[in-house]
């Protein structure tokens, strides 16, 4: 128990220590930690819980003020410390200021202690607001702010080829083109190329699949992250037969070889071939959005391949002083030159240059993060409005106290300072607690990120999050603290005469009115935003995927080329595998494909439809005969691909409905159409069936034209085995493994996942945004109701005597309730109106960045407005009823 308590304290203190500059922390951090823990324990022994709390307060203050001083000193430069006279003057001022501050703090803490409910409410509300902001900011920080872990990462760009004539973008790069760009572009310092491969690690126990990146020799220098042990690749190691070396990532080295340094120079066997280990990469080395375990040299030189073969990924570093726009302009020119020189392969091809980070983030992450930031910012605004409201209400109770202090000679400045100190203390307590909450909050947010988020993005409460939280806390204090401070510091001694009700009532009720309008408007924006996104999510979840993800799982299998060198071997292997698995108990259907739906692979080909001039671009999926059953594809016309298509080259094709819609005129029967065979010697391939559209690429993307061919036309080595089981896939798993291994006991089974989990992971990206928006929306509803309730209750309580008089004069309870509700209700309606305008503007912005969200959905707008109106009414009605319950005598007694 104690040990875990200490671990906890250590972690918190370590976070606090981040107030210090890194250099200081590196030097003294560990010792400071020990010193603090010793003091904490000592205080705990001496004074128990009180001692511990005191230690945290004093120690926390010490580390924060010390850290800030250090940072300021560093900013001012060493020279500022030298002038002894200056420094002592300054420090004298500081001492005096600290003295006053301490007095203020003490007074405030005593005051708050007397009204713990107020303090607690404010602190908790602030903590929720600030914590939510810090959590979302951690996400934003990791995705958009923290530099990529490379040298001068802002200079790194990714290069893709594009062919606008054929409507292709984001196409891999051909080796010769990459070589020529590098040679001709002066805006690029260097270009490195790579491609990903999965190979089998042999000779080390059970064969396992290795995630491999084949990289050009300049890769690690280009990234500015050379191996920590050994060396990088040499130019002469590029090319087939010369690539007998391997570089290990730190993680693989630790896992596989226990971090043994003697591994350098030894050989390991990959895919049946010995390779000498020449280097170990640094710990926490990340490679773009890939997760390789080892690196091999590119097994090619550019001249091995034609210009039309696009299969490499390329990353480049901008030359010093060159901007990305200049690079784009220059590469456009070079692409035109190349198209002139090699018109048959390069005609129509251009180059896309994008910042490396943007490329890895994808198109939605940035706007989604910003939308969340805005939403959570609104929540904080509402929190501040609420707290200001609470402070106002409480302040009026304190009018007498403040008036007495004024009478005793406290100046206005002193009063403002006192009131601001109170806000500051509440703010920092709230902010601190918020940070504490964020420590869990951000983990929750990050955990729900889609699992295809690149591991290069790391999240944590780092310096910038702390700085952000601090700034946010100060900003909140300014928001909720200023109005009450200015208001109450104005009270004259007059407040003593009439119990503090002179003068300020009208202005405070005006402020209350503004609060109600603001709260309602902000809540409406958040509720509509959340509502729209939730609706989109439920649409995505309910959409017809075109396949049945239940009770189905996929596994990636790659028979090694050393064992199965020829097309015939592959065909035999895959046929045997499917047959054997189909016989396993619990298996309903089995099929294989080079890429199953949602796998994120794109095979796009252009095909020639017989009788049409233009080439058509389509997704191409190779499928075994069992695949259609295993995935539950639905045939609309004709027949699916069948087992008999697997063997003899029967040349049959199936297309989806999108293909028919896009490329065939309505008067043409697809079943009479055929494709020109790429090998002119063969007969055309007839379309034998049309299936319903299948969501292949992403759940938020509309299905593209797709073509399904049998493996008999291309015996692909590495495939997904898709297995539909009778019950839960988990129950049949061991039977299936046995079946696979009965064909080849050395075959590794990779990425075994249920289709359902893959669908869920896909929905995840949207779900994160939508769920968070929903949380913020509910929070805003609660805060809005609380605010309206607070304002109304307060206004009603101030009118107790007036209500008493009215009731004494014969007003009924219902009249009083109606009066109070209708006055607040007008403000709420005004707020709803303003909120609707604001919402229209903001959701429009949201819709423009989150594709597929219907921003003018009348149902959501109506529902949200009604809900908000009802909640507001309730928040008005409760205090109104309470006010009317006061008997006339009791009300008049208060005078």
């Amino acid at each position, binding site marked *: 128990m104690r040990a875990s308590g200490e671990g906890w304290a250590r972690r918190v203190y370590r976070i606090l220590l981040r107030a210090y500059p890194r250099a200081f922390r590196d030097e003294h951090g560990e010792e400071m930690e020990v010193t603090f823990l010793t003091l904490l324990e000592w205080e705990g022994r001496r004074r128990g819980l009180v001692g511990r709390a005191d230690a945290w307060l004093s120690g926390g203050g010490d*580390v924060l003020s*010390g850290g800030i001083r250090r940072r300021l000193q560093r900013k001012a430069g060493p020279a500022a410390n030298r002038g002894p006279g200056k420094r002592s003057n300054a420090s004298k001022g500081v001492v005096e200021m600290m003295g006053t501050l301490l007095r203020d703090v003490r007074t405030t803490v005593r005051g708050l202690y007397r009204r713990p409910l107020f303090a607690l409410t404010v602190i908790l509300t602030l903590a929720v607001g600030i914590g939510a902001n810090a959590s979302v900011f951690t996400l934003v920080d990791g995705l958009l702010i923290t530099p990529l872990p490379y040298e001068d990462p802002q200079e790194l760009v990714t290069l893709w080829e594009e062919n606008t004539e054929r409507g292709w973008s984001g196409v891999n790069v051909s080796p010769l083109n990459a070589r020529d760009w590098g040679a001709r572009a002066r805006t690029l310092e260097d270009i490195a190329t790579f491609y990903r491969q999965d190979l089998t690690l042999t000779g080390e126990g059970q064969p396992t699949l290795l995630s491999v990146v084949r990289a050009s020799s300049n890769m690690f220098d280009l990234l500015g992250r050379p191996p920590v042990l050994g060396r990088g690749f040499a130019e002469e190691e590029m090319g087939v037969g010369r690539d007998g070396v391997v570089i290990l990532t730190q993680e693989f080295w630790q896992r596989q070889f226990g971090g043994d340094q003697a591994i350098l120079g030894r050989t390991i066997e990959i895919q049946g071939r010995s390779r000498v280990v020449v280097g170990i990469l640094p710990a926490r080395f990340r490679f773009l959005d890939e997760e390789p375990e080892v690196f091999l040299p590119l097994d090619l030189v550019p001249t091995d391949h034609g210009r039309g073969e696009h299969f490499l990924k390329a990353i480049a570093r901008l030359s010093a002083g060159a901007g990305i726009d200049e690079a784009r302009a220059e590469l456009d020119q070079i692409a035109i030159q190349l198209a002139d020189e090699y018109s048959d392969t390069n005609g129509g091809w251009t180059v896309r240059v994008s910042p490396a980070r943007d490329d890895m983030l994808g198109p939605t992450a940035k706007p989604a993060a910003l939308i969340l930031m805005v939403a959570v910012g609104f929540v904080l605004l509402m929190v501040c409005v609420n707290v200001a409201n609470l402070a106002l209400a409480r302040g009026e109770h304190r009018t007498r106290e403040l008036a007495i202090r004024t009478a005793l000679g406290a100046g206005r400045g002193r009063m403002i300072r006192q009131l601001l100190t109170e806000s500051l203390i509440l703010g920092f307590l709230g902010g601190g607690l918020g940070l504490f909450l964020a420590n869990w909050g951000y983990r929750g947010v990050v955990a729900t990120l889609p699992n295809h988020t690149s591991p290069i993005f790391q999240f944590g409460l780092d310096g910038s999050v702390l700085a952000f939280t601090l700034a946010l806390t100060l900003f909140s204090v300014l928001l909720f603290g200023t109005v009450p401070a200015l208001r109450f510091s104005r009270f004259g001694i007059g407040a003593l005469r009439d119990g503090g009700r002179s003068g300020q009532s009208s202005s405070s009720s005006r402020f209350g009115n503004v609060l109600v309008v603001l709260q309602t408007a902000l809540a409406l924006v958040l509720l509509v935003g959340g509502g729209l996104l939730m609706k989109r999510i439920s649409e995505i979840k309910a959409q017809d995927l075109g396949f049945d993800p239940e009770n189905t799982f996929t596994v990636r299998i790659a028979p090694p080329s050393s064992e199965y060198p020829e097309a015939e071997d592959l065909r035999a292997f895959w046929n045997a595998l499917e047959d054997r698995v189909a016989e396993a108990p619990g298996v309903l259907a089995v099929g294989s494909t080079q890429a199953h739906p949602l796998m994120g692979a794109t095979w796009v080909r252009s095909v020639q439809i017989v009788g049409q001039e233009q080439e058509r671009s389509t997704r191409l999926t190779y499928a075994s005969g069992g695949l259609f059953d295993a995935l539950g594809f639905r045939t609309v016309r004709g027949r699916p691909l069948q087992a008999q298509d697997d063997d003899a080259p029967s040349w049959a094709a199936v297309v989806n409905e999108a293909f028919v819609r896009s490329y065939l005129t309505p008067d043409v029967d697809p079943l009479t159409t055929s494709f020109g065979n790429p090998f002119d010697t063969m007969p055309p391939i007839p379309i034998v069936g049309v299936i319903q559209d299948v969501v292949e690429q992403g759940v938020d993307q509309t299905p593209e034209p797709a073509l399904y061919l049998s493996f008999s036309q291309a015996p692909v080595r590495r495939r997904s085995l898709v297995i539909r089981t009778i019950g839960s896939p988990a129950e049949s798993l061991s039977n299936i493994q046995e079946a696979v291994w009965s064909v080849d006991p050395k075959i590794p089974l990779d990425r075994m996942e249920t289709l359902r989990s893959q669908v869920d992971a896909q929905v995840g990206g949207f779900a994160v945004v939508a769920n968070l928006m929903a949380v913020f929306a509910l929070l805003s509803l609660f805060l809005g109701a609380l605010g309206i309730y607070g304002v109304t209750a307060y206004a009603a309580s101030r009118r107790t005597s007036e209500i008493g008089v009215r009731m004494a004069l014969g007003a009924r309870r219902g009249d009083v309730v109606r009066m109070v509700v209708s006055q607040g209700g007008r403000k709420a309606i005004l707020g709803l109106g303003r909120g609707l305008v604001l919402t229209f503007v903001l959701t429009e912005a949201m819709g423009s960045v989150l594709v597929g969200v219907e921003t003018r959905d009348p149902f959501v707008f109506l529902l949200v407005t009604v809900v908000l109106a009802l909640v507001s009414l309730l928040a008005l009605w409760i205090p109104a009823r309470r006010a009317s319950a006061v008997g006339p005598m009791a009300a008049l007694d208060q005078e």
Partner: protein
Amino acid sequence: MPGGRSQKDTRPLKAKWFHILLSLADRELHGTAIMEEVLQRTGGAIRLWPGALYGALGDMAEKELIHEVEPPEGAPTEGGKRRFYAITRKGREALAREVAHMEDLVLEARAKRVGEDLQGA
């Protein structure tokens, strides 16, 4: 008020600095050990919080009152890296001056019979 004196070397030492120098007067210690000794000596009245402690150690080293030394052989380090400090000649002088100043104050107080009137009560 002693603080009003203009001569630099007669300005009293800050209480924390005084206690740090006093702890280092007879042996070399690391930060945590200094803190613990001061804690014991003052019965918890002076708690050297880490920020203040390591800030003071840095400032004092800059003013050459103390300097960092190699850890003594077999010194307890509680498993981590510990920086040990020793008092310098200048530090000893400052400490001695402060102690002399305190003695003066005590003598003056005795002369005024401070506290004697409370003893009977």
